[in-house]
């Protein structure tokens, strides 16, 4: 899992250690109610190496990529990039059974914004 933490921080280019735990990301997040883990928790979980939990969470797909957290973060931690990196890390796992394209339609929530759906399809294409 340590390798995974490194991978996530490397592909995100974000540094979770800069986080001062102010919670402004979570305060700004419009998808808060849909998430099991929230932006400040994402950062903490990456930093403390709890990536498996994070990769299995549904919350990472509820992120709208609206970048409000990234924009508001006073420490330039950029939680949205970390989340994106975690999603990429899920995809990059070799021989792991991540979602197949045909599994996606039944999972789709009609209330999800278009942007998130497009972004999800892009992520699952491989």
């Amino acid at each position, binding site marked *: 899992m340590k390798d995974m933490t490194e991978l996530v921080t490397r592909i995100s280019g974000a540094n979770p250690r800069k986080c*001062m735990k102010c919670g*402004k990301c*979570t*305060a*700004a997040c419009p998808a808060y109610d849909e998430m099991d883990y*929230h932006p400040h928790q994402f950062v903490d979980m990456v930093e403390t190496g709890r990536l498996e939990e994070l990769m299995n969470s549904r919350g990472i797909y509820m992120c709208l990529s609206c970048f409000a957290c990234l924009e508001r973060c*006073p*420490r330039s931690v950029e939680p949205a990039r970390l989340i994106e990196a975690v999603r990429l890390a899920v995809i990059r796992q070799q021989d792991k059974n991540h979602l197949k394209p045909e599994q996606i339609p039944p999972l789709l929530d009609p209330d999800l914004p278009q942007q998130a759906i497009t972004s999800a399809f892009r992520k699952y294409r491989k």
Partner: protein
Amino acid sequence: MQKIGVFVCWCGSNIAATVDVETVSDALAREPGVVFSTNYQYMCSQAGQDMIQEKIRELGLTGVVICSCSPRMHEATFRRACEKAGLNPYLVEIANIREQCSWIHKDKAVGTEKAIILGRAAIAKVQLNAPLTAGESPVTKRALVIGGGIAGIQTALDIAEAGFPVDIVEKKPTIGGKMTQIDKTFPTLDCAACILTPKMVDAAQNEKINIISYAQVEEVAGFVGNFSVKIRKRARFVDETKCTGCGLCTEKCPQKNVPNEFNQGLDNRRAIYIPFAQAVPKVATIDPNYCTMLKTGKCGVCSKVCTAGAIDYRQQDEIIQQEYGAIVAATGFEPISMEKFDEFAYSQSPDVVTSLEFERLMNAAGPTGGTLLRPSDGKHPHTLVFVQCVGSRCDGGEKGKPYCSKICCMYTAKHAMLTREKYPDTEVYVFYIDVRTPGKNFDEFYRRAVEEYGVHYVKGMVGKVAPENGKLKVQASDLLGGRQLHIDADMVVLAAAIEPDRSARPLATMLTASMDTNDFFTEAHPKLRPVESPTAGVFLSGACQGPKDIPETVAQAGAAAAKVIGLLSRDHLTCNPCVAESNELMCNGCSACEKVCPYGAITYIDKEFRGPNRTTLVRRVAQVNPAVCQGCGACTVACPSGAMDLKGFSNAQIMAEVDAICK
């Protein structure tokens, strides 16, 4: 022929445990020029010093090398001892074989070898040492305090108390600074004006203090003890000597729509104004940006109503040239602009205010007469949200500041407490990242806000404020409760970060005083010389050095005054003789040294030189003012022609040391 004496110190076991002192003194005895070499348990003791003096007299030593602790520790001691025995103190060299040798090595063989090398280097250097004599410069017994806030006032009062004349230069029409705008002070809740205004009056009445208000420093020349300062006193179009401060003109002036800076723009003043009732000096000032008479030549109401005949529309800026022995920077702070923090809707709703604006809304002399009312509709607010750390502790953005502004936790607790006390029907939320209350009775104060006054402290930050139907929709995180909060607030108060006043940067340039990346003045030493600038004769008072609350500011102001008094009470200053010196024959006039000199010690002059065949030629050459030069050596490195050299640390001496080490 050199006659050098070498004295190796054991420093008890500090050196002797890892350095074989006997071997060191024996080895150094064989160095060229060395006529005497010994070791002793404590060289700095009276017996040790006596031995050095005895050998200087007995053998006629021309140089002394002491292998001991760091020169920072005892160089002065040994120099004094040698001077008493008739040897020029600058012919003494210290080889640091403690901090840089015995303390860092475990292996005695290694330590011994290194100690010998360090001793050898010092011997090589002392061979080239020249006797130096410290010069003297006179001291002008007058101080200048730049900034008339509580820091500047306190410094000036303390200097005046010691009997020295002081000038306070204040850029606003009145002294008093930020503290005049504050309602109550933490943690005692006494009224700021009640404790400040007597001090302002004291300063005005003290015959040693001269207040130059509505003025700014334009030029600083000279050096410690001998500064020459040009001050521009702006035209206020009112004769200060005639104006009685009756205020009639400020009531009759027809130009009523000038944003009142004293109330943070929350109400308006006239074009001719006295900032507030207790202003010092209490004289009116005409704002040339708004005065109809000055802009169009048609009005003149104030001059008609003025019974003292003090209005003078043709008044010009006045230039004051004055000599000073010491300068104190007390330029203070400003809250940062909230323009870049759109998420808090500061520019969208008048009900989102900064903490300083909130002070005015709570103050009896403020725009609402001390009743807390919403700026938008003048109604009483029921739900208030305070946001901490707005722009403080930000990393890597131009949006905020990387430092903690220090005062916000306490004043927010104060605001929250006062609100709850005056209006028990309110709900008050404070969103915090950390509550930082180190200070006497500070944490108790914050706990009182929570426990006695029922202020809701929420760990988390506000992410969004949106004005909607007369309410402010606040979306925030409650990290300890694990939820996202949505509050319909009536007012939002932002604890804006503080930054140094904008006048500080140009002033630092004029003073050649160094600043950090945040434009706070740098101290000569962060711990041991906290009120002095690295530039001799320049002292620091108050928030211009870093964020500070009132008690700390007053303490630092007093400390700066003590340093100024210490300087001004001397008739002459001894200069450090280890200063830069330019060899005019080698100087090519390139100005490289002038540009790197952090103290402004180098100037260029055109000088006549004798050329071939009885001709003269004029060349531009560098000159070092030895009283200003601090001996940092930056110019010697920058000089491309090798003309610049540092006395006592010449290039030849340094190279001799290096050669000795590499031998």
